[in-house]
């Protein structure tokens, strides 16, 4: 046996092997296509598989796939323009149908774009913004609002429970979009709203509103502070007056009582002999005459009585 022939034989075997045997990955499902036409059942079990050399293998992902829509600008029912970004999960359920209708994933994505975008646009434009943002179990305790600005907002109804809310809205979108999926061989698992935002001009408006709100709250705080401070100082003034006048009153009473007592004592003592008191007291006052006083006496004053003679009647 010539070695060369062995090698050539090996090569030929390899080529045949390559043409008749293929590997199906865990992640894939496949259809055998013969001269452009699908043959046989869908192969979904992974492993080593056989086919005829003139047959081709079309592989499709078996896994759950991601779809991410473009950010679209949609007006809500209340004419607020918002930017909506949705995502969805889908699967190639029927590769045969899939192959026939969209051929490959790129085709599928284009169709998904159209269908889901259109459904989302319809739903969003017929729904109020609050319904899109809030969920079914939205509840607010009006009496317990921490943010004082909320009570003043008249563009909002805080109490109103959403008819659908976010989750149910997403489910409704899913139901509607699903209707068109079977003919594509696609199973739509879910559609979710990833992002919702205002468009720039509306965002600026909202931000300005938020700023104005905060400023008015700040003003309120400052005014409260001033008011309360004035109140306290006013109270203080009143109390000060009370204290002062009370004290003055008491002091006067004490003085008055003392004066009365003194007068009584004097009266009692001096009243025993008023004439003598007058004499005695007057003598006392003479003691105040001093070096800056000038005294004018008559020559027949008592003091001079004995100046000229020694005996006087």
């Amino acid at each position, binding site marked *: 046996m*010539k*070695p060369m022939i062995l090698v050539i034989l090996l090569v030929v075997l390899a080529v045949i092997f390559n043409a008749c045997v293929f590997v*199906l990955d*865990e*992640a*894939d499902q496949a259809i055998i296509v013969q001269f452009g036409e699908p043959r046989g059942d869908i192969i979904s079990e992974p492993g*080593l598989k056989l086919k005829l050399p003139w047959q081709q293998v079309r592989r499709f992902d078996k896994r*759950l796939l*991601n779809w991410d829509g473009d950010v679209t600008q949609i007006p809500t029912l209340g004419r607020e323009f918002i930017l909506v970004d949705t*995502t969805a999960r889908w699967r190639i359920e029927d590769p045969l149908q899939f192959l026939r209708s969209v051929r490959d994933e790129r085709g599928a994505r284009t169709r998904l774009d159209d269908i889901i975008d259109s459904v989302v646009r319809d739903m969003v434009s017929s729904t109020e913004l*609050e319904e899109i943002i*809030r969920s079914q179990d*939205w509840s607010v305790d009006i009496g317990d*609002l*921490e943010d004082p600005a*909320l009570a003043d907002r008249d563009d909002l109804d805080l109490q109103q429970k959403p008819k659908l809310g*976010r989750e149910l809205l997403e489910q409704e979108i899913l139901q509607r979009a699903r209707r068109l999926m079977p003919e594509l061989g696609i199973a739509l698992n879910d559609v*979710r*709203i*990833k992002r919702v*935002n*205002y468009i720039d001009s509306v*965002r600026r408006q*909202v*931000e300005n509103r*938020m*700023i104005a709100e*905060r*400023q008015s709250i*700040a003003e309120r*705080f*400052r005014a409260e*502070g001033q008011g*309360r*401070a004035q109140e*306290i100082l006013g109270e*203080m003034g009143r*109390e*000060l007056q009370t*204290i*002062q006048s009370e*004290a003055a009153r008491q002091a*006067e009473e004490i*003085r008055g009582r*003392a004066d009365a*007592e003194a007068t009584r004592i*004097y009266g009692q003592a*001096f009243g*025993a*002999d008023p004439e003598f008191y007058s*004499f005695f007291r007057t*003598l006392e006052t003479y*003691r105040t*005459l*001093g*070096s800056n006083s*000038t*005294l*004018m006496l*008559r020559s027949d004053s008592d003091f001079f009585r004995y100046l000229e003679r020694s005996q006087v009647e």
Partner: protein
Amino acid sequence: MNKPTSIRGGRSMEGDFAQLLGGSPRKAGLLIFAAIIALIVVWGLLTAFYTVQPEERAVVKRFGAVITITDPGLHFRLPFGIDQIQLVATERVLKQEFGFRTEGVRAGRTGYSAKAFEDESLMLTGDLNIIDLEWVVQYRINDPIKFLYAMREPTQTLRDISESVMRRVVGNRLGSDVLTVGRVEIQLLGRDEMQQIMDHYDAGIHIITVELQDVVPPPAVQPAFNEVNEARQERERMINEAQKRVNQEIPRAEGQALRTIAEAQGYATERVNRALGESSRFSAVLAEYQQAPEVTRSRLYLETLHEILPNIGQILVVQDDQLSPLPLLNLDRNRAPEVQP
């Protein structure tokens, strides 16, 4: 040995090659064959072993079909690509950041990207206000086969779902709630919902925590929010200062009041005591006077005059029939007494 003849006139390839090697053509062929076999064997050996690191597990596929998961260590597999290995880090805690990015550790401190990632972080609250929310999702891959084969892009899906869930949870709350007391609830609710959805996809991911980082009003509005805090503090400050003044003035006034009263009491005591003193002195003198009235009266009178007259500046005596007075005593030592006729 017969030399094989070739069509090309007497020389053959094997013959030439053999002559090069210095051996027979058959031996040469065998050598080439052996070399190829050796190469194949070596290549086979190289691809027949693989290592799994401690934080990983390996998913082994044979002819494309998953057959087993292997633990850390050195393992054997069928070579030549028959067995394929996919390494999955199942023991490591992985994280996804939203609204910000960590950019490595510099000098012991974590550095953050300067970009804002506002697309991820800005969202609407239930009262239609805008809020800026950053968060981190920490998760582990707890089923490597599911992680690889249930979804094509499990990590990207996790990110999309995380954003969707956070927006739903935040959108169902008031803005003031989210900024303050709602943080813990949002984290827990967010984690549970994300896990529920990822389980629904059977993605093989276990979400450990959802942690909120910065939760603030959007940048344009932040100064106004700060102003509210400052105003609140200003209010407290004004009230405190007024109270402080009260606490100073009232005690002072009370002290003053006590002093006023004490002064009055002092006056009272002094007044009464003086009265008592004076009147008792008078009564004593009176008693003496009543014993000997004439004498006492004269005595008192003369004593008084005796005391005061020397000190009086000028005494003028007027006689009945005289018009101008006579100075009696001269107390002004600097002046010579004037005698008037």
